Every structure is written in structure tokens, then in C-alpha cells.
């Protein structure tokens, strides 16, 4: 029988990593709320619509959950990395785990018209502005 001693460094590394991630999170940020800073997002404008993009390579479509309410967008899901249990690891740069991020957009979204596409590891959301949030041209008599 093999008795494995707990690696004393693993605990410290875990704590340090957790502290790092808190510092790196945007918990206290004014722009976003939510428990995480992953995934990184790009917000683009296409006419009056917002286009939000996130790179999520290795995340399965069914493991993704996107919610829109008012002017907030929530992206949550999990990323899993599967490999042969008997394989020896030469290099490990990819990370896996759960994520949950909420962002507040600068205008109300028409949640009924939101469309989402997930292709080649990139999530693209098209978020049309609500009618009430669209700028109106005033005719001058």
C-alpha cells in the first residue's frame, strides 16, 4: 500500500492562487458585478446593437449559460479538460474550471431579440438596444 503525504506546498500554492484571483477579479469594480473576471469580454458596436464576444476554447456549447435581464448580461459555465489518465504531463498551460461573470451594459437590452452564436470556441452575442433606449431624432419645425 502506498501512503501519499500531502504536499505542504500544494496548500500554500492553492491559497496564493486564490488570493491572486481575488486581486485580479473585478468584484469591487464599478463596471461589472458578479463573482468572476473570466471570461474576458470585448464589447463592440454594430449600429445601435451591442456585440459581445468572449473566447471560450474547449467549452462545450451545452455547458454555457447566457442570461440577459434589463441592462445586465450574465455568462456562466464550466470548462473541462479531458485527457488519458495514464498520460504523463509534459506541459500544462491550459486551465479548466467553473466561471460566472456578470456585466452591466450602458443601455437597456431588448432581451427578446438577443441572439447568441458559439463557433470555433468564440461566443458571440448580439444584443439589440431596447426601443426605449434608442436615440430619437427630433424634427425641428
Amino acid at each position, binding site marked *: 500500500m502506498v501512503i*501519499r503525504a500531502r504536499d505542504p506546498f*500544494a496548500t500554500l*500554492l*492553492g491559497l496564493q*492562487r*486564490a488570493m*491572486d*484571483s481575488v486581486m*485580479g477579479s473585478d468584484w469591487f469594480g464599478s463596471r461589472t458585478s458578479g463573482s468572476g*473576471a*473570466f*471570461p*474576458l*469580454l*470585448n*464589447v*463592440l*458596436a*454594430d449600429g445601435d446593437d*451591442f*456585440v459581445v464576444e468572449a*473566447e*471560450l*476554447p*474547449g*467549452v*462545450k*456549447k451545452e455547458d454555457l449559460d447566457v442570461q440577459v435581464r434589463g441592462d445586465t448580461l450574465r455568462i456562466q459555465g464550466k*470548462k473541462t*479538460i479531458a*485527457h*488519458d*489518465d*495514464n*498520460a*504523463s*504531463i*509534459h*506541459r*500544462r*498551460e*491550459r*486551465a*479548466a*474550471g*467553473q*466561471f460566472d461573470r456578470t456585466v452591466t451594459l450602458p443601455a437597456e437590452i431588448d432581451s427578446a431579440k438577443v441572439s447568441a452564436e*458559439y*463557433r*470555433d*470556441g*468564440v461566443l458571440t452575442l448580439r444584443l439589440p438596444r431596447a426601443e426605449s433606449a434608442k436615440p430619437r431624432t427630433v424634427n425641428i419645425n
Partner: protein
Amino acid sequence: MSSQVAKEVAPHEKRELTQAEERTEAGKFFSPYADIHETERAVVVTMEMPGVAKSSIDIQLDKGVLTVKGTIDSTKYESVRPLYTEYNVGNFVRTFTVSPQVDAAGISAAVADGVLTIELPKAKEALARRIAVS
């Protein structure tokens, strides 16, 4: 191997390639994050290349150097303008030195959800053999 410390997903900056050689193509090139595993039969390289379509991946093996290049479709960015950005987009390129003990003819690749998996099978001579004691 399930006892290994699980990494947490955290936002990490993409590694932009510092020019090791002059590129004649326009745009940023990034080095994709990769995992390398070795099993009894093969060496498996897994790379994250988000936004790269299957048809835009180019894999070449020349003189023991495996070059993987992935190009993104930038046409979808033509009609939009950025409001707020946290990451940059660009093409991916990475080279690996391959052991001569790899069976070059048997290399295979597959892509799913922006993750490219390349399997480099070991040549017959390199496979470990168990010798029975008679």
C-alpha cells in the same frame, strides 16, 4: 492523475509573439496555450485557438519542426467598432521540435470548439517493449 491540483479558470493575457523572425503578414500573432501529454503510444499536443475555423488551420512538419498556424476570420470585424475591449484578437502560430522517434506518416489532427489536438504516434522502434523472462 485525478489527484492533481485543479487549475482555476482565470483571465490571462494572450501571449503576443515577440518577433523571432520577420513576418510578412499583417496583424498580431499570438502563441496559443498548449498542453502536451505523453501516453504509451503517442505524444498528444492540445492547443487553444479560439476563432480559428477548421479550414484555416495549417500544420506542417519539416525537418523535425512542427509548425501550427491558425488564421482568424477578421471580416466579421469590418462593420463593428470597439466600445470596450479586454482582449485582442489575432492569428496564432507556434512551433514545436519533434523527436525523431515520432512516426511522421501517422500524425493526425482534430479540432473541436477552438481546441486543436495533434496526435504524434511513436515510431515502432521507440515503443517500450516488455520482455518476458523465460
